[in-house]
């Protein structure tokens, strides 16, 4: 088996001042694959993603192992971390309306990634950014390059985000609810673009989402989180054969097109789901 990109063993995160841990003993490894993390709000899925990039000031992160390629993420200094963020590991956030700088042209924001991490001229960075905007299927990239975030649509904004995050050719991309702010028709388009780029470039992808349909369609493997713990790991195609009652409950609670009109199954939360497995 090829060397994994990311190895996480017994990751625990406690926010400053909180009495309980937000993430309790999460372990997984990631190769060049697409891993989905699903769970309800508050289950700690985004916290895991942020911890990998060390974007949790004030929180205590402990783990038996947190290796990214040859780097130990637990011991890196902030200065070294700056070389990792955006260059080798990057994150696509939920809503382009809030994650793009409203007073800078979108093209310049994309090019900034390249300028920051590589020695090059501004013209070179501009060319790279334009090529990348074209790769995320933005028609007329020259025009879009000079526009401001409020002038472009949500779907286009999210594609700009993807372009920005993939420009430095990272090894790992973390997508935190990349399409939940988008309409259904646009959502598929954006996901297909992301999927194509990730496959072509052999990038590892962690897709954080609450949407079971999304991870089913766009991931190879799925971790299901509940109250800070991974309760089940499954191949995405086996999602229907999930065994943990929580996963089964989530699947049953989802209304389906062409499904019956009987009342939807409601989760019957069990206390034992909270306990850590020995």
């Amino acid at each position, binding site marked *: 088996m090829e060397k994994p990109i990311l190895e996480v063993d017994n990751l625990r995160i406690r926010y400053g001042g909180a009495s309980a841990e937000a993430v309790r003993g999460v372990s997984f490894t990631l190769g060049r694959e697409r891993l989905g993390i699903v769970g309800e709000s508050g289950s700690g899925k985004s916290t895991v993603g942020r911890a990998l990039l060390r974007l949790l000031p004030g929180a205590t992160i402990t783990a038996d192992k947190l290796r990214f390629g040859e780097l130990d993420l637990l011991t890196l200094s902030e200065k070294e971390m700056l070389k990792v963020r955006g260059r080798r590991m990057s994150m696509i956030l939920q809503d382009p309306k809030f994650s793009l700088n409203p007073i800078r042209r979108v093209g310049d924001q994309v090019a900034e990634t390249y300028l920051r991490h590589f020695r090059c001229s501004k013209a070179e960075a501009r060319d790279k950014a334009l090529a990348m905007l074209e790769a995320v299927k933005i028609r007329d990239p020259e025009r879009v390059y000079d526009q401001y975030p409020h002038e472009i649509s949500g779907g286009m904004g999210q594609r700009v985000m993807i372009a920005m995050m993939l420009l430095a050719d990272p090894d790992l991309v973390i997508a935190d609810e990349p399409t939940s702010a988008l309409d259904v*028709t646009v*959502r*598929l388009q954006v996901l297909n673009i992301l999927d194509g780029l990730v496959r072509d470039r052999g990038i590892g992808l962690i897709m954080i989402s*609450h949407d079971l349909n999304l991870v089913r369609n766009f991931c190879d493997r799925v971790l299901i989180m509940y109250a800070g713990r991974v309760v089940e790991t499954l191949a995405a195609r086996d999602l229907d054969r999930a065994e943990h009652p929580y996963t089964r409950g989530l699947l049953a*609670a989802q209304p389906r097109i062409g499904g019956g009109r009987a*009342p939807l199954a409601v989760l019957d939360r069990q206390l034992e789901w909270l306990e850590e497995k020995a």
Partner: protein
Amino acid sequence: MSVSVETRDVSITFGAGPAAVRVLPSVSFSVGPGECFGLVGESGSGKSTVLRCISMLTDIWTGDILIDGKPVREMPLIERCRTLQMVFQDPYGSLHPRQSVRTVLSEPLAIHRLGDREERMRKAITDVGLPVSFLDRFPHQLSGGQRQRVAIARALILEPSLLLLDEPTSALDVSVQAEILNLLQRLREERGFTYIMVTHDLAVVDHMCDRFAVMLHGEITEVLPREAIPANGATHPYARELIGASLEYESAH
């Protein structure tokens, strides 16, 4: 106590002069008594604006909106509020953070000078499946699903006949969404409410609604029965695209 709703040529323009934007050019549809009618379409297509026009939250529209044959514009405020109520999208934003559930529920009763307040509040909170002790809680002591239940209780307390639901579950998790949809379904069976529901999720439409309208740029492209979803029976290209995308999203493996 079911009512019908009819909108004819409803049109609304925001702004004036050259900057004026015609958000709804001309919207007409009718909803039968006790029906659940869905409004779907991309963001900015005017779905929520239609609800705001029906509820008179926005009143600069032209055209006719009839509730049980009566023009909504001519209904006195008190009567209107007892006929229709609205549930908003985000339960984190639609409840006052410094008002307890009791305050939230008693205010409409005070305005409408209704007696038996305690009794009515207890009934409303039990109807939405929350214990009576929750009356003394504040929004920050409630989960998202519980907040949305309180928002529904607030809408129910004046015993309206028409509920306008603006994406009632899109801010909630699937597991919580199921609880709220079941609740809405049960209330409709028990009370014969008429629902007009804005949503972007066709699976929810299929689960809840009898008919739905697909909106694009403020216009209703097509009104379809729920049975048209699984086989994509739409004829308008945009409606076909929307249903097609939803089907693909749900079933592609």
